[in-house]
């Protein structure tokens, strides 16, 4: 299963998007039990595309909470596709696609 959960709903021409990404968002400041620093590991870039057009993009710092929540809204309609993808500092990526309700 994808690490991203998306809810996208058409509200009178404005699509309300809520999404949750499962990610540790390690700050690099925390220490494990033996006192060693846990290396930083976080999502750096997030972007959203609807019908092939970028509708939102953001860059995150480690100060975004674990399992980041992101909400935004754009002009669109029911039945359009919405794809959200992220990339973290290790180069890992994930994406999820949904149909706007």
């Amino acid at each position, binding site marked *: 299963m994808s690490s991203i959960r998306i809810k996208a709903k058409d509200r009178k021409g404005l699509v309300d998007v809520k999404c949750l990404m499962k990610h540790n968002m390690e700050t690099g400041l925390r220490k494990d039990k033996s006192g060693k620093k846990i290396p930083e590991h976080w999502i750096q870039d997030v972007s959203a595309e609807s019908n092939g057009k970028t*509708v*939102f*993009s953001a860059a995150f710092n480690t100060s975004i909470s674990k399992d980041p929540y992101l909400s935004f809204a754009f002009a669109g309609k029911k039945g359009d596709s919405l794809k959200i993808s992220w990339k973290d500092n290790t180069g890992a990526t994930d994406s999820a696609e949904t149909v706007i309700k």
Partner: protein
Amino acid sequence: MDRRSVLKIAGAVSAATATVFAMPRMAFAAYSDAIFKQKAGADALQNAYGANATTPSDQVKLKAPDIAENGAVVPVSVETDMEAESIAILITENPSPMAITADIPAGTKAMVKTRCRMGKTTQVTAVVKSGGKLYTASKEVKVTIGGCGG
């Protein structure tokens, strides 16, 4: 085409190219250490938007709790009625204040909601880039350690 007009065109082209390269860095939402590893909010803004002169505006609506019992998960939302190109959130007391920059293309509402980490009681500033200028709204969020709601 004679030699003179060719030279003229070549000159114009190179001048145009120089202008493009001389332009300050445009705002775009892609991660960069120059923005997110800065220790000072003003430097982060400078590197993100090519300017750090900000104007407080009541058109920038920043929502965050007065008191956050758990600094690891603090909901923050920024919204504006202005034509925004980009939105950023700065958390002053964090080791690197810039938390998020978001691009707002045409057709997208000038709004972003997320959850942030705050190490301690801090000033939270929402920055909206509109018409090449930076507008802000700030608020203090008290972070209680231990989560007893004290």
